[in-house]
């Protein structure tokens, strides 16, 4: 607060140069025509991308479509803990849990549906997942849907997008002394 650097912006003076329109118009024209000829001849400044044919690279952190990771044996990694559906501000994740035969897994999602129409791509679900099961790094742009039903991404779809997760889980040392 002590160093209050205030600068007063300078208003250009209205001298004859400015008042006669032409020089400044010519200056503007020079800028636009420079761009015009540059792009006409080389196209080097053109920024737009022909979207479906050319795709820009998404950054690593880009939040795209969700995907579900799977365990080493290909089973879904999600254990239906509902953390993601709890944190979801848009209420777009619907999970039905069920009992797994394997008591070491115990619980798995019988249904896992993401309503892409409601999803606001905030990424909180990924952060909330305690099992590294849901991710948004598929790099796939959420595409439009021609039918409403298609916008409900189910478990199979999400697993198809998914990959294995390498995260170790279940205890620092992993091993449990056998009983």
């Amino acid at each position, binding site marked *: 607060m002590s160093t209050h650097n205030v600068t007063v912006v300078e208003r250009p003076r209205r001298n004859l140069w400015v008042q006669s329109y032409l020089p400044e118009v010519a200056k503007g024209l020079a800028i636009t025509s420079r761009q015009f000829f540059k792009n006409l001849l080389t196209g080097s400044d053109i920024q737009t991308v022909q979207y479906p044919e050319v795709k820009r690279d998404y950054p690593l952190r880009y939040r795209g479509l969700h995907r579900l990771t799977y365990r080493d044996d290909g089973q879904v990694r999600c*254990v239906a803990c509902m953390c993601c559906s709890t944190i979801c501000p848009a209420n777009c994740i619907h999970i039905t849990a069920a009992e797994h035969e394997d008591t*070491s897994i115990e619980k798995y999602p019988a249904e896992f549906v993401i309503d892409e129409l409601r999803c606001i791509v905030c990424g909180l679900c990924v952060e909330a997942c305690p099992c590294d099961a849901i991710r948004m790094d598929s790099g796939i742009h959420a595409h439009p849907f021609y039918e409403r039903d298609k916008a409900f991404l189910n478990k199979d779809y999400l697993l198809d997008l998914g990959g294995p997760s390498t995260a170790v889980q279940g205890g*620092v*040392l992993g091993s449990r002394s056998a009983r």
Partner: protein
Amino acid sequence: MPTLTINGKEITVDPGTTVLRAAAMLGIDIPHFCYHPALSVPANCRMCLVEIEKARKLEPSCYAKVGEGMVVHTESPKVIAARRAVLEFILVNHPVDCPICDQAGECKLQDYYVAYDSQPSRVAVPKVGKAKAYPIGPRVVFDGERCILCTRCVRFCDEITGTSELTVAERGDHSEIRTFPGKELDNPYSMNVTDICPVGALTTRDFRFKCRVWLMSSTDSICTGCAKGCNVHLEHFQGEAQRYRPRFNPEVNEYWMCDAGRMSYLELHADRLPSLRVLEDSELSWPRAARKVAALLGEKATGEGVAFVASAQSSCEGLMAGREFVRTMLDDAPVFWTGRPDGDGDAFLIRADKNPNRAGLAGIFGVEVLAQDAHRLLQELERGAIRVLYMMDSTLPFTSDEMKRFRAAVEKLELFVLQAPRRGGLDDLADVLLPSTTHAEQDGSFVNEDGLLQSFWAAYRPRTQALADWEVFVRLARGADRELSFSDFESLHGALHAEQGAAQDAGE
């Protein structure tokens, strides 16, 4: 009357009170796992340790009795350090199970960890493996790894039910809750152990993986399983009841409820009447339906041969309105009653009368009505004395044989109006179907076997067109351009209270 100081605040309590209770009276929470007010005190979890001046070491507050001039600190550095140590110790062998554990969200371990510890563990040893997802009884699942050996469940079986199925087996970190050989946890109150289990070691099979507890809302309600009227928390998610949990009421059920009652929530959504129907017309709104029904009643329900069946499942408010309805719309037709048939009872919480409001019914329609039960109704029907029948419920205490007879008799009726929450196998016979709400969808009250008037509150809105019984009656009366003496719940409830109070005064 000893006076003691806790965290600088003075309190005078009865002699023999424990420090933990005295602190609770002052509004000071002392964390605890093994202590439960209804059970004996083993003081084995050491979570409730407090510092008492002049004592040589920290004392478990659940066990330590108050003494005159005692000075207690519940938040001193020593206590905090002790709590941290206890939690760290308990968590050494606790599995990383929160995602799959049903207790997550109402887990004492989670609450206390965040409130009193919230630091990483210094212990890195392999966790001891124990039984996972082991069905310890027909209705309860046990997870040994999550168990912190507070022994509340063991004490419950010893002290409350007296069945003593459970014990602690093995030693040291291999200790585990087990049933005695050849036994399983199958007493009629077995699911209470899941409520008192502070962690997710004991969970009910019914609620297993059904819904996360933090997502549910809770509404105070009354169990309708029998005439005891146990107080419950009705927990629901997205308009659907998920479970009952006993609600503390020292006059009725204390901390407990029976397994059968706990499972009775399943009926809330089973077999519901889908929509209004008047004769063939099922695309109706209430006002239109009310006019049509009123016209039908006005045409047929006059003179002899009209009968009204009240339900011992309905709320007092519904029955009050029904009485008024019989008076104004049905020319004081004879009243019968119906409900579930009697079953087994015991000396603790289970009553033989399986209807929540028979006492209320008797209070409102007079004790005489109890004689006019469903079997009398059947006789009258078969005698042909009844042309028009208005039933408030579809629950009937009939055997299958009797049911057949009843159906045959009902088919001959001129007009059969069924106002019920459930189909009960009668919806196809009814000329008029008026869906009503269950107690989970309306405000109201029941009178239990001991004559106690207990209120319950609407937990969620019905998914169908169902309305509370009293509102159905009010609407039907309006359809006939008549007014009952009340038009809203408050006035009805007030009237009920006045009447009940008068009845009780007279009784005394």
